[in-house]
């Protein structure tokens, strides 16, 4: 299939699955989705209003918030930047382009720029905090929030989905192998803790 999409971690699917520690943490790569980087002046009603009516979604103005309109997400990346995330086959870019034509905006298809890893389970927060300096305590960071940070030495766009907690980790395609390898390594200790594993010498 010519248009079959091969995700950056397609070759690691089984390694990701095998890293799972039941009742502690699971990791998988999500299927491709449409991602549009949108830049514009949110204080300008022509921009915010047009986006709102075109997408039926209000762009979040509070830093690090995610707006969710029936599965179409808008992640706040900066005062004038959002990442719109929708289903794989989506005319998001075209709709925005026609609605915002004539305005000074930037609409950039970045669907293949980052892949999305889903890390979930009671230990997910702790695992992230081994390499991510953000305060992820539920008092501070919860579902519906996002933040740009690092995971060890890779760029990370983090989005918390639910209170389990489940996180979506947006990482650049070229860094995905590193990020996944780092996560699998960080997950190991819980597997050993479960088995009561001792070192073989």
């Amino acid at each position, binding site marked *: 299939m*010519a*248009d*079959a*999409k*091969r*995700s*950056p971690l397609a*070759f690691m699917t089984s390694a990701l699955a095998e890293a799972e520690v039941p009742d502690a943490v699971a990791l998988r790569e999500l299927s*491709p989705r449409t991602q549009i*980087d949108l*830049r514009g002046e949110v204080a300008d009603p022509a921009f915010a209003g047009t986006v709102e009516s075109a997408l039926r979604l209000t762009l979040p103005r509070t830093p690090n918030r995610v707006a969710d309109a029936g599965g179409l997400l808008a992640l706040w990346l900066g005062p*004038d930047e959002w990442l719109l995330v929708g289903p794989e086959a989506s005319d998001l870019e075209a709709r925005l382009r026609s609605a915002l034509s004539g305005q*000074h*905006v*930037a*609409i*950039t*298809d*970045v*669907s*293949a*720029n*980052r892949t999305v890893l889903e890390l979930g389970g009671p230990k997910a927060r*702790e695992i992230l*905090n*081994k*390499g*991510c*300096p*953000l*305060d992820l*305590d539920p*008092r*501070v960071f919860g579902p519906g929030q996002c933040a740009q940070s690092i995971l*060890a*030495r*890779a760029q990370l766009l983090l989005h918390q989905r639910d209170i389990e907690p489940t996180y979506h980790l947006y990482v*650049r*395609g*070229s*860094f995905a*192998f*590193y*990020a996944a*390898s*780092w996560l699998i*390594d*960080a997950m*190991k*200790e819980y597997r*050993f*803790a479960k088995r*009561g*594993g*001792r*070192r073989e*010498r």
Partner: protein
Amino acid sequence: MNGAYRLPGKGRVDHERRLNFNFNGRRYEGLAGDTLASALLANGVVLVARSFKYHRPRGIMTAGAEEPNALVQLETGPWSEPNIRATQIELYSGLEARSVNAWPSVGFDIGALNGLFARLFVAGFYYKTFMRPKLLWERLYEPAIRRMAGMGKAPTTPDPEIYDKMHAHCDLLVVGGGPAGLAAALAGARSDARVFLVDEQNELGGSLLSRRAEIEGAPAMEWVAKAVEELEARANVTLLTRASAFGYYDHNYLGVVERRTDHIAPSRRPLIARQRLWHLRAKEVVLATGAIERPLVFADNDRPGIMLASAAQSYVNRYGLAPGKRAVVFTNNDGAYEAALDLLDAGVEVAAIVDPRSKPEGELAALARKRGIEVLASAAITATRGRKRIAAVEVMALEGDRVRGPRAWIGCDLLAMSGGWTPTVHLFCQAKGRLRYDATKACLVPDVIAQATHVTGAANGGFELAAVLGEGFAAGRAAASRAGFESPEAPPITATSYRESPLHPLWIVPSVKPLGRGHGKHFVDFQNDITAADILLAAREGYESVEHLKRYTTTGMGTDQGKLSNVNALAILSGTLGQSIPETGTTTFRAPYTPVSYGVLAGRDIGDLSDPIRITAIHEWHLERGAVFEDVGQWKRPWYFPRKNEDMAAALKRECKAVRESVGVLDASTLGKIDIQGPDAVEFLNRIYTNGWSTLTYGQSRYGMMCHEDGMVFDDGVTTRLGENRFLMTTTTGNAGPVLDWLESWLQTEWPELRVYCTSVTDQWVTVSIAGPKARKLLGELAPEIALDGESFPFMTFRQGKVAGVEARLFRVSFTGELSFEINVPSWHGLHVWEAVMATGEKHGITPYGTETMHVLRAEKGFVIVGQDTDGTVTPEDLGMGWIVSKKKDFLGRRSFARVDTARSDRKQLVGLLPDDPKEVLPEGTQLVGDANARSPMARSLMVGHVTSSYASAVLERSFALALVKGGRARIGETLYAPLVGKTVAARITEPVFFDPKNERRDG
């Protein structure tokens, strides 16, 4: 001799759980709950080390982090660790340790001969003796001194342990789990603030673990147990024991090492990180770090069996052992009387308490007298005896700063001393807090805080238990309140309390002979063998600044960083200079508080995780085809694709030939790509690039070069106009990030009026670059819908359409000089398109090639690589690319071209080089000279340039190079020489374009 000094049933050790261990090759038995130090003392092992300089016998002096003597090499082989304090090693079954500073053994030490020449080993001895000749210092003196003095040995095999890191945030971080810290943590916990309590011991309680104090009428440890229970039960509290807060940085950011499995035998450790580095960020920090007792500086105060009074107390009460059978206590304050009473109650004979004060009349002194202990007031210890263990002390009457009268010798095997207490202010000072001198307590105490810090308990100079508990609660409440949480007020707590006589500072205890005369040594810094006489000498020689004193004498250096010695040294220096202690000041406190292993600082950033390995979407294919990879920044790029039995040279020759004769394919996905949009994009590009962009129309591409303000080449690449207000900029692989930062910094700070947005799309696109005479034919088969002929799709233009069934962007650019197309597709289609190119190209002889072939082909064409042929000191003009510098507009770096320096005619300029011997490939970086007889190493004045790129060319059938040569363009035709090891290579300067100078091949 197992446990001869053990006190049955006493202490916090488990008398039922016996643990075998090995020290200096001998087997011993200890108990669960012991440290290595306590287990040794329980076995009567006092002598554990030799001193650093004089190789004097040394014993365990403390029971904590301040230990200067009992340093051991812990474990063997890959688990071996040097210089670990025996006082902080939790005993486990099978533990193996050796003294670090004794050769051939602690009992018989050749180096002790140094003691006979002690007069030679004065302050600055090494500087004075071994300075000349310089060569001997490097070759002979230093290695020999290091072997003699050498602390432990670093292991030579890889560490099998895992280390990791953890980031955490809290409202309240309490450092220290003693009475003050526990009280502060309780107050914080009850406020619902997020509390971290960090303590270096295996058990919370701090000083209470070692004392027989009472709180609320019950043993203090019962109060501790209740406090810990409450803290453990609260979800808002995290307790970290066996965790040392070693560094306090800006913004209330602290480093903590948690030792998770160090207390378990290596063979039995669970497979978790042995140590974890916590990065803690706290809104408020409460430092309850306690205090460290000071030794007294008297003659021969270093014999084994001499220890801090608090240590003796700790060994009795916490570890259930008698550190001796007959003790003398030497103290200038009331605290050590409590130790004397504890020793007495443990069955140790207390021969005398020697007290320089004329009237020690506190409650504890009265109690001691009542219990029959002889208290010698206005007295001092003036000498000691005993080679491998103290045997007796000489006591004389003290009058002012002199001793007089008869000398009385008192036999003992333990001398417990106390010169007062030094608050542990390391973290406080690292946080840039300032100290003041408290003359009553004779110590430096926190004064001005610099961050959101609270100091409480002994760390703040509070040494009275009930008060400390109250202050701890108050500090916890205050900290919680400042973090936005309210904590209920706690009722006052009663605790053991004694009325005390004030301490009498006695910085140097006099002897009959003046300091430095006779045999007695008044040690100040035990680890570095620095005496009071050394400090006086240093002061006489002009080292009056405390920082100079430290470096000249080395006092306060080493693994203990002067925890015992700094205040004494400071006071002695002040005394000799006739100035106050505050006038003298202190040396700087630097992290870490206690040594931190490199392993835990590295964490998991080792091996394949040491730096991100960035790969393209085609990486799997490259791997399967046996590509040899090259690291380009963080990227793994195929360097070349060797076939079976093919060496690198043969592979390159084949790859180069294929591109020149048929068609080759390169994975160019790593190039940086920036999507630039906005009505001012053209103006923006005009300012960023040296060349002009106003005339670039839709669908056209242009090569651009950008400079920093200094006019030196920073990056280059092709930028394409994708639409009226939209451009795609490409950057070099290594500069993708820096270029975006550069663009953003100008947009955000200097040119905010420009309406331009930049978005990185490097990872969005895979770039499959096909090059060679058959490239058009091949692409035609893959993209039948796109007109590819030269007229429809001219050089430096862009088209969109389907390639191998996938929507693609096509760019007609060329880095090889051949007809070339760069196919860009969203990265998830990259592998598919690559494979289609390979399959369809098979009949055309398609050959995958790597970065090395790319380098050779572009160099044949004289195309530079920024970062290889440039080094940040090269202008476009130097590269012979003056044509790319616009005269009509302003741009970054333009002003610098008006500088005299950038207009010099003798600047290094890019030229070609053809070695006389066509088989000779010059090493890149080779220096060039004009003199055929010059031999390496040459004088700098002889060097006229250097080789930047050098290869064997398949198409030229000879070697060639690019070089930067002073005034090179005017020297074309001249011969230069490259003096190499064993030979000199002659090479002729040429134009930097070696192949197809008229660009006749790029259109196919």
